[in-house]
């Protein structure tokens, strides 16, 4: 049980190589088409930030619901947290690209567009930056507090830090409701500043939680196949896959609620969003999105037999990794770039970010024992069984 994860040199090199590919791709992107490169940066940063937010929400949720079964996997969710400050830095770099990404930053456009002029009190660069600082400040402070308490709990034990973590989790969930909603409106929805949808932020939040939970599961699967977490039984796999299964249904439900209502009411200001996305070639991604993020996990994990096979679970998660990318590509590119072109630079940038993300996770995991010490529900998690 005392096993610590060791971040091997060769794996480090792989991560760094991936990052190098990313840097080169971004550089090529900026030379060939800067507009696309900015959009790619936004996409990938939001992608991995959403995973980190999703995973930290997962952890907070385990605290407030006093869930015992997942206590042993707390480190995995914790390891996503270091990405949040990195995402903040990249978001600030992205501020240089706002002119290219967001139409509402151009004064000459606002002057001729009464709707954008109406939105100016909210959609203006200084306020945008202030909000961004606020979001990241809240996320970083609260998640770091959770980390701090977790470290102290390891050393001292007792219920004090568990109670404190529980409280911080409540505050974190409370503040995520506001901050993550506005952040998705700001960063993604305002790419097409005329369009609006109230479920947008909620859908993106669920997508973050959904894919965050999926990646947590994937990491557990990988570590388990290297001999870590020897206590894992079918019950753990069943619970992890249930998370993915249910969240896929919720995601599909939100997706459908948005689409059906906009299609049905057929108000031009709203419908135009889907008109663009239902034109060829976007159409392929549009249907691919719902198929990958909802249909695949739903159909495959419906069967109890499949849901407890870690290889099948991993197979589904690989789909979901692509799924979240497609979802965000569809949300960002039609507004930010307008042309459909998935090229080498898109993939390269994604690989680069993946390398960075894995590096951060692996180095965070290697610092402390893989199973938390002194967590009050640890024993329950280690001996979790079906009943």
């Amino acid at each position, binding site marked *: 049980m005392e096993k610590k994860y060791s971040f091997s040199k060769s794996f480090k090199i792989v991560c760094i190589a991936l990052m190098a590919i990313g840097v080169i791709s971004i550089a090529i992107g900026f030379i060939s088409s800067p507009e696309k490169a900015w959009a790619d940066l936004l996409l990938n940063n939001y992608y991995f930030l959403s995973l980190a937010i999703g995973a930290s929400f997962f952890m907070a949720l385990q605290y*407030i*619901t*006093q869930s*015992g079964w997942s206590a042993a996997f707390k480190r995995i969710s914790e390891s996503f947290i270091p990405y949040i400050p990195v995402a903040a830095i990249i978001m600030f770099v992205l501020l240089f690209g706002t002119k290219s990404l967001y139409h509402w930053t151009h004064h000459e456009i606002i002057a001729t567009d*009464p*709707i954008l002029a*109406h*939105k100016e009190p*909210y959609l203006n660069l200084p306020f945008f930056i202030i909000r961004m600082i606020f979001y990241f400040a809240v996320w970083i402070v609260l998640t770091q507090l959770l980390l701090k308490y977790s470290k102290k709990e390891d050393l001292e034990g007792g*219920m004090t830090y568990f109670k404190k973590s529980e409280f911080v989790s*409540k505050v974190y*969930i*409370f503040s995520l*409701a*506001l901050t993550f*909603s506005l952040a998705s*409106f700001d960063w993604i929805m305002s790419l097409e500043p*005329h369009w*609006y*949808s*109230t*479920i*947008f*932020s*909620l859908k993106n939040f669920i997508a973050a939680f959904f894919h965050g939970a999926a990646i947590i599961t994937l990491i557990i699967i990988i570590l388990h196949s290297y001999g870590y977490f020897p206590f894992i039984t079918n019950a753990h796999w069943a619970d992890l896959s*249930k998370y993915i299964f*249910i969240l896929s*249904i919720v995601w599909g*439900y*939100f997706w459908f*609620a*948005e689409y*059906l*209502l*906009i299609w*049905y*009411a057929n*108000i031009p*200001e709203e419908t135009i969003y889907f008109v663009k996305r239902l034109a060829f070639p976007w159409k392929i991604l549009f249907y691919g999105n719902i198929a990958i993020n909802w249909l695949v996990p739903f159909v495959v994990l419906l069967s109890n037999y499949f849901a407890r096979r870690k290889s099948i679970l991993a197979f589904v998660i690989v789909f979901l990794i692509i799924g979240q990318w497609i979802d965000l590509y569809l949300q960002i590119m039609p507004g930010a770039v307008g042309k459909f072109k998935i090229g080498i630079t898109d993939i390269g940038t994604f690989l680069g970010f993946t390398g960075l993300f894995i590096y951060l996770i692996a180095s965070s995991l290697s610092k402390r024992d893989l199973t938390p010490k002194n967590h*009050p*529900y640890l*024993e*329950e998690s*280690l*001996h*979790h*069984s079906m*009943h």
Partner: protein
Amino acid sequence: MYKTKIRGVLIKGNKSYRQITDDIIRPIEGKTPRWWYIAMTISTLALAMGIWAIYITISQGIGRWGLNNSVAWGWGIINFVWWIGIGHAGTAFSIFLLILRQKWRTSINRAAEAMTVFAVICAGVFPLLHMGRVWLAFFIFPYPNTRGPLWVNFNSPLFWDVVAISTYLMASATFWYIGMIPDFATIRDKTKSRIKKALYGFFSLGWIGNARSWLRFETTALILGGLTAPLVIAVHSIVSMDFATSVMAGWHTTVFPPYFVIGAIFSGFAMVLTLMIIVRRIYKFQDYVTDSHLNAIAKILVFISLIMGTAYSTEIFIAWYSGSEGEIYTFFHNRITGSHTKAFWTMVSCNAIIPQLFWFKKIRSSIAMVFIISIIINIGMWFERYVIIVTSLTKDYMPSNWATYKPTIVEVGTYLGTIGIFCLGVLLFLRYIPMMAMSELKAINKETS
């Protein structure tokens, strides 16, 4: 399986199995208490009022309601949505908490399911009357007919409502009944009255409690549960679509389906809380519905209240952000300010602000406060439907259409009547049906989570 001791036991008092049976059966076997007769009388009076109102509506027509061409939906639809919302309690308790492995649900789920069934019946009264000619209500069913090519409009959310709600009623009633079979058998075996023996014997379907029966019983419950869970989401999503598929300002917003479902669970949980606080007091069931049960429900309510607050603010924000004049007018000049301010702010304070008091442990552990807030939430949820329906309809896009709306005594009477039906149902339930699932209680006896 290993269980941490932190969470505390689910049933207090270190009961034996026999004690559990005796405790739960006592209200059924004992003499009818006086309060029960008084409550029955009041409920019957309310029902009588309802019957009068329904008689007036059927014999004289919808014109006796306060509706007009602009405000074609009023109390009827408000109360319909309100009751359906309360009707989400049973499924939320039985299914969602079952999936989430919250075993404390065991002492509450039976009562919650009973509420579901009665609330859905109450809800059904309103659209039925609203059709105008009740005797032609069967036109809504899509069966091969002799009326020529006249079919129901399959594209209409109102038709989806009929399908979803009738399915939901059947599924939840079946689920409720099946769960009761072993308990009916227990009463059959214990009772000394021959009439009761015959009746409970009939309803227990010859249950003898062998291993095979239990296996099938549990499998059936699980399958039914699995089928009902999506159904409950579908029901209120479809109810929300009655509004959201339109182009009315304040109605057409994409967040409506999940927001309605959450709101429904909110009011359902609040109603369960109200009921359980009364029941545990009257029947001295503090060992089964412990303070930590109430605490847990209060915690869920504060969480849902947060979601409600987020939904309200998102709606208001997007109304402004959209730049659409209709939306801006509806939210900023007809809800936040304007002639419906009171209703709007009642809704916000009852649903999003006052339940936040549950953050404080002191408030959560004061039974009186919990009781008051649980009622406040249901008042707030009633006003939410009022705000949505009445504000948008009284002032729509065309000022020449603007109208006012006041309910008449007939509408109020119908509402009171449904409250009567609900209370009657619950009272009969408390008197004749074991209000907690004895067999399930025994399974979690001495467990901690």
